């Protein structure tokens, strides 16, 4: 196990969620969520499937709408106002379980599309930025290929680079390694660790507990649409308080 990262967390608030509730039809997915994330925090969200952890982070960039409560991202409240939503989405990057690269565009085009059309950055400059981030995720030589020609791990790293090209202040990860072969998980996690070292505010839904111990400054455990326990990783793993957390940890760390 690598050294625990020691990183600064500022007092500035990046995301503030207050009394947030969400229903899918009559199904109550998220119940009274309260969560404050400071700039520079690395938060890992874990929990059994169906506990609402993906839905929670999808609410933060309005891929899902919430029915009550408040979500304030970077000082902007998420309402149904499309202008606010577009502003928040360009400040918040997101990585998906299945990468969701655009298969009809080359890697470079995947990375430059949003900067050119949303940020209105000149094409040449956008391409330089894209190459910078592709180098950061260690695949600059794939820039002219298409997503279908890359391995899963490489695709996920491109997806991270694509988000970074928008220069987001917050990154959301929705089970970024769940669809990958064991060999490729490491290359993606290494990229995420580097990102954390650069001081990015991150919320990761993941089952990689090693990553949580090494990178996270807070681990959140969710079950049945509510936050059951949150703590520093050391405390969370070695001294869980709730019975539900103990059961969950024994299930995933048991073998």
């Amino acid at each position, binding site marked *: 196990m690598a050294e625990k990262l020691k990183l600064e967390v500022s007092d500035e608030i990046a995301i503030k969620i207050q009394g947030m509730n969400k229903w899918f039809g009559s199904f109550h997915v998220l119940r009274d969520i309260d969560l404050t994330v400071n700039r520079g925090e690395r938060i890992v969200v874990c929990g059994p499937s169906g506990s609402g952890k993906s839905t929670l982070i999808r609410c933060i960039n309005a*891929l899902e709408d919430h029915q009550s409560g408040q979500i304030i991202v970077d000082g902007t409240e998420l309402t149904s106002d499309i202008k606010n939503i577009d502003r928040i989405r*360009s400040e918040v990057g997101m990585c998906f379980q299945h990468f*969701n690269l*655009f298969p*009809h565009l080359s890697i470079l085009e995947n990375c430059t599309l949003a900067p050119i059309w949303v940020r209105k950055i000149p094409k040449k400059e956008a391409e330089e930025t894209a190459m910078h981030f592709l180098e950061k995720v260690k695949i600059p030589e794939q820039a002219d290929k298409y997503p279908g020609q890359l391995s899963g791990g490489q695709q996920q790293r491109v997806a991270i680079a694509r988000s970074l090209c928008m220069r987001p202040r917050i990154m959301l990860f929705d089970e970024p390694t769940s669809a990958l072969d064991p060999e490729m998980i490491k290359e993606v996690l290494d990229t995420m660790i580097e990102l954390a070292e650069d001081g990015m505010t991150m919320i990761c839904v993941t089952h990689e507990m090693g990553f949580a111990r090494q990178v996270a400054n807070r681990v959140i455990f969710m079950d049945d649409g509510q936050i059951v326990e949150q703590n520093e990783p050391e405390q969370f793993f070695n001294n869980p308080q709730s019975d539900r957390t103990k059961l969950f940890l024994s299930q995933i760390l048991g073998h």
Partner: protein
Amino acid sequence: MSEDNSFVRKEMISERIPPAAERGLVKWVRENLFSSAFNTIMTFISLWVIYSIIVSVTPWFLNGVWDAKTVRECYDLLDGKSGACFAVLKERFPQLIYGFKYPSSEYWRPNLATVLLLIALAPILFRRLPRQLLIFSAVYPFLAFWLIWGGSILTSVSAFLGCALAIICYRRFSSGSFAIAVLVSLIAANVWWIIGGYIVDLNKSLLALEVVPSRDMGGFMLNLLLGTIAVCLSIPLGIALALGRQSGMPIIKWICVVFIEFIRGVPLITLLFVANVILAFFFPPDTSLDLILRVLIMMTFFNAAYIAEVVRGGLAALSKGQYEAADSIGLDYTQSMRFIILPQALKISIPGIVNVSVGMLKDTTLVSIISMFDLVGMIRGPILSSTDWNGVYWELFGAAAAIFFVVCFSVSKYSQWLERQLETDKR
């Protein structure tokens, strides 16, 4: 186990060619024609059928008479032998292509328009060609109208300037609300067209070509005219309908659903009768809307409804992740449709769109039923009913089939080529 199982290869085996019976033509024939007793029998039966067809048809072609004035002269020349009377194609060629009323001194105009059509379509069909050619594609519809219908060039110029003005206004206002931009550009274009109407009336002889009214259009030219315009207009309309059907706004969605389901539920021939007879009742008596225009509106609507459903299939085939990824990097609705969703959905829809459009091209022959003299109308009407060429069915309809086949087969070959070009998501 005492037996020694270990083995070490001393020399690697180099590649060798397969046995003679397992390669080239021999292998293909064995596998495809004589792989079993049943297949061998089927092969011989097929060969016999092909042989008999060729034997019976070849003399008909080879004995064909190309020079005769009437069908009787044809039979005299054939002197009892079996043979085709291709002379009718030669003698009535202009009628088959241009109809029987288009002034023969003006045939160069539709010819030129067809050649220019190919040039105008080229940059749209082939992405590698220089993009500047698209300017010509934009001008072409107005140029073609002037060439085919004739009259003063001012009419076309005025119509073109109106459209250009609408686009400029849209660009100017599109940073604000979409609805306002559309409204302003519509008003600007209409105001221009009203003013333009007076200007055109001032000088009717500027670069004027002989006016050919719509009822004088005919032959294959009419099929090509109707087919090309209907297909070109119905693709954007169909895409808009498909997107409208997916819209979150209930009224827009509702209008699109009703339109698509109504048009799809009615036979094209009914719509054409409506265009021919009933549509005229809806307009004031003195604004006689051109028959070709009425037929075009119906054909465009009909094809657009089908294309909308094909495109909807393409949209549904995309994973939800593509929509979410486009949203998550901050693209707005127009951008995500334009750059992410439609390029992929349309690629999936190409076979369907081409299928529907080739069908449309062939269905233009239905106008012969509402007494327009297209290729089939010409054959059924003026040519077959003339005493000179009474009863020459095979040659005429065969020629019509051949003409349509060449056009439709090229379209389908192009679409297959385009699909291969766009194949980037496969390894």
